[in-house]
């Protein structure tokens, strides 16, 4: 390697020995966690990556925070409203589970360690979603409208709205498939069970649900939000 100026710059952003050791320790720790059925995870710096994987679950907190803050300007009240310090456990359509407790500013999260499966499978050229004991052909819906959603109540009476939506990223970049999966819980203000979901698409779906809560027809809201998303982020 040449000792030129640009390489000196790259050398300057190398991790220290202490950093390398700490990262390795964290990797080992998380590797062990992943082999246990469920782990309680407190919000510490080393676990931030796991919290990031909860992004869609927390999306509604952020969206709702925006709406709620407009009224009260106080995000803690939002937390109290949804969690009341006692926590909430939800099981999403694909089997992912999340438990949240908010005590003051400390968030404690217990999550299932692995991402649940896709609920969409290909069968004879059709896309079939398996949800709530049903198998539904969503090929036409995705082709014509670009989205599909299905609402149901689970055994604990939590309302779910499962979304399968054509994404703009395609498969060549970061999206796993050309469509994405997201389970929205309208009454709890949470989402999860996501696969291949980008920030932009999550915000479009979340925004449409907020529009619907404010009285707009959900299909019309989805159409508006998704068309903007596809136009802005499409290939």
């Amino acid at each position, binding site marked *: 390697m040449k000792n030129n100026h*640009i390489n000196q710059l790259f050398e*300057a952003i190398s*991790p220290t020995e202490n950093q390398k050791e700490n*990262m*390795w320790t964290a990797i080992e720790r998380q590797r062990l966690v992943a082999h246990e059925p469920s782990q309680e995870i407190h919000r510490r710096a080393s676990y931030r990556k796991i*919290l990031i994987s909860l992004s869609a679950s927390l999306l509604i907190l952020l969206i709702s925070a925006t709406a709620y803050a407009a009224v009260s300007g106080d995000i803690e009240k939002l937390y109290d409203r949804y969690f009341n310090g006692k926590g909430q456990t939800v099981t999403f359509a694909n089997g992912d589970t999340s438990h949240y407790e908010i005590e003051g500013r400390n968030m404690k999260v217990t999550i299932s360690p692995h991402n649940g499966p896709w609920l969409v499978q290909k069968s004879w050229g059709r896309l079939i979603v398996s949800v709530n004991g049903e198998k539904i052909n969503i090929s036409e819906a995705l082709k014509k409208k670009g989205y599909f959603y299905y609402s149901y109540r689970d055994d604990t009476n939590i309302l779910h709205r499962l979304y399968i939506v054509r994404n703009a990223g395609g498969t060549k970049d970061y999206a796993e498939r050309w469509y994405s999966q997201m389970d929205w819980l309208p009454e709890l203000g949470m989402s999860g069970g996501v696969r291949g979901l980008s920030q*932009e698409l999550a915000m479009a779906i979340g925004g449409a649900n907020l529009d619907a809560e404010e009285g707009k027809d959900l299909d019309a809201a989805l159409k508006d939000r998704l068309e903007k998303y596809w136009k802005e982020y499409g290939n």
Partner: protein
Amino acid sequence: MDDIYKRNVEMIYRICFMYLKNSTDSEDAVQSIFLKLLKSNTSFADPEHEKAWLIVTTRNYCKDFLKSWWRTRKVELTRLPEAVWRDDNDGSGEVLDQLLALPDKYKIVLYLYYFEEYSVREIANILIRKESTIQTQLAKGRTLMKVSLGGHYEK
């Protein structure tokens, strides 16, 4: 795994830092990428294959991370996890900032070419781009660096 980590951790961290521009997110990203490798049970033909896989995975992870809503929204919610941007070692200070400010597509090409000493053809294969594109990006990156560094870089 220990060996793979030792062989590649510095390279992965540098790529992460170029994209994410802070040590906290870069450390998290390094952990995620190695956990992804563990989970994938990927086997490599040789260390070069291993290195190329890690470069692509790291780049994709960082791009994905930068697109994630968490990344973009957390800044607004300052009471949620901290947003740390420049708490890192001094390095070359202002000049380093100028390097980090370059568009990602130039930084990664410059890094692979100069620091990792890949050829244009090899970079094109790893990043799945045309050789002519890599050459153009390399030239553009050099020009930008020259402007930023006042002509201090060497070909």
